[in-house]
């Protein structure tokens, strides 16, 4: 059943469309009508047929003109698309290059960031220690104090030595005086004793 209807369909199609579609059919019809017109007899019929043929010819020319224009348009569009295509290709390569450059820049920036962070980390540690100038100043003032104090100490020691020497002199003088006084007493005792002896001798 299917094949029969298929055959019917094909036959119908061929009957309707036997001359091809559209423009092709028009040209075939024109050809057939030209031949009919050449073979026709009467004047009026011939004239109307002639007019009809001119009309069909006009239509054919019109459709040919249209097709030519469409062809031109297609060519121009192709060119346009080629241009756009090359432009896009160039943009792509440019973008790739930019991406590569940006990647390099990113690496550079990351290195810089890493260096800065290392610097910061060390700076934090350094901050914890007191300032160098302050420590130096403290050291200087401590030095001065030390010198000052050591000078005072020297002075005091000198004074102490001097006083010791003075006391020594004083004590030795006192001792000498004591000795002299003792000696004097001894002599004066001895003198008195002698005098007493002489008096007792004289008294007898």
């Amino acid at each position, binding site marked *: 059943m299917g094949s029969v209807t298929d055959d019917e369909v094909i036959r119908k199609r061929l009957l309707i469309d036997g001359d091809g579609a559209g423009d092709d059919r028009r040209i075939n019809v024109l050809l057939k009508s030209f031949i009919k017109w050449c073979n026709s007899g009467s004047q009026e019929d011939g004239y109307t047929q002639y007019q009809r043929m001119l009309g069909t010819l006009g239509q054919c020319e019109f459709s040919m003109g249209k097709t030519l224009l469409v062809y031109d348009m297609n060519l121009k569009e192709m060119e346009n698309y080629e241009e756009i295509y090359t432009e896009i290709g160039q943009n792509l390569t440019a973008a790739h290059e930019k991406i590569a450059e940006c990647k390099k820049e990113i690496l550079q920036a*990351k290195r810089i960031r890493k260096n800065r962070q290392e610097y910061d*980390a060390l700076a934090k540690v350094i901050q914890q220690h007191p300032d160098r100038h302050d420590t130096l100043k403290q050291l200087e003032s401590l030095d001065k104090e030390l010198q000052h104090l050591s000078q005072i100490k020297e002075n005091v020691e000198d004074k102490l030595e001097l006083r010791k020497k003075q006391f020594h002199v004083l004590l030795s003088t006192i001792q000498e005086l004591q000795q002299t006084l003792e000696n004097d007493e001894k002599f004066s005792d001895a003198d008195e004793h002698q005098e007493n002896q002489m008096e007792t001798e004289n008294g007898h």
Partner: protein
Amino acid sequence: MGPNEFDPQRSLQVLHMTVFSQSFSPCGKFLAAGNNYGEIGVFSLSAALGPEATEDSKMPIVTFKAHDGPVYSLLSTDSQLLSAGNGEVRAWNWAELVKKVSVGLGALGEVDNSLLMAGGDNKIHVMDLESGDFKMVLEGHSDYIHCLALRDSAGECLSGSEDGAVRIWDFRTGREVHSIEVFKYQECSRPQYGKYISCLTTDSDWMLCGGGPSLSLWHLRSVTPTTVYPVPGCQREACFHQDLVLSVGDGPFVSHCHLSGDVKARIPCTPPSLYSMRLNYSSQEHRVLSVAGSSQN
């Protein structure tokens, strides 16, 4: 065993699996991960990260048993993968050949063609990669060593250990330059977590260390702690990246912090506790950060 068959023992293993260490290949296209069963799995980054990745392409392309005990540390040199487990270090060519090397454990570091191995015997052994003999032994720690970091600019290496001290060693003289007892500094110490140092990394003049004491940034020239990061839990691995500090540890997240001390972001992850973190610098198209840890229960 086909991939679709259900293996109950394997599923139990997967449930209790913990990844301790990772390493990217020198070409940057593969990631090796070592787990607590002594296996090393190699994943292909291009397959797993590509646009047509499926569940299968995220499975390891190769898994092999490397050690009897857990693989605690992995390190990639120019052509080899070195893995350290309980008692031995093995070298595998990234083209999958096996070559047993020598004895050491714990943490691995590489500098100038020599391999540094540090671990349970409290010492760091420096071995020449070409000849295979030991050049130096650095002694001084009183407890086992958790982590190593290298400071190429000064020819030194740092080691952090269970005894709470970070020691800085000079390669040329083989002697200790400095010893920093992190837990003795008020601002870092967290006595409730202990004093061990489990993560250590250095960036020429600066050092990050953490573990029992909180994660802190130190200036090495003056040996002073400059910033303490308010990250909860013990950190197992930390690293410097551009202008950030990334760290992982207890807790299912990766912390991104600025050098100044504020936590910029805390990216959540599936494992409840992370042990290892690696950045893939050797590849341009697979620049990833990979973190690994214990399995979800």
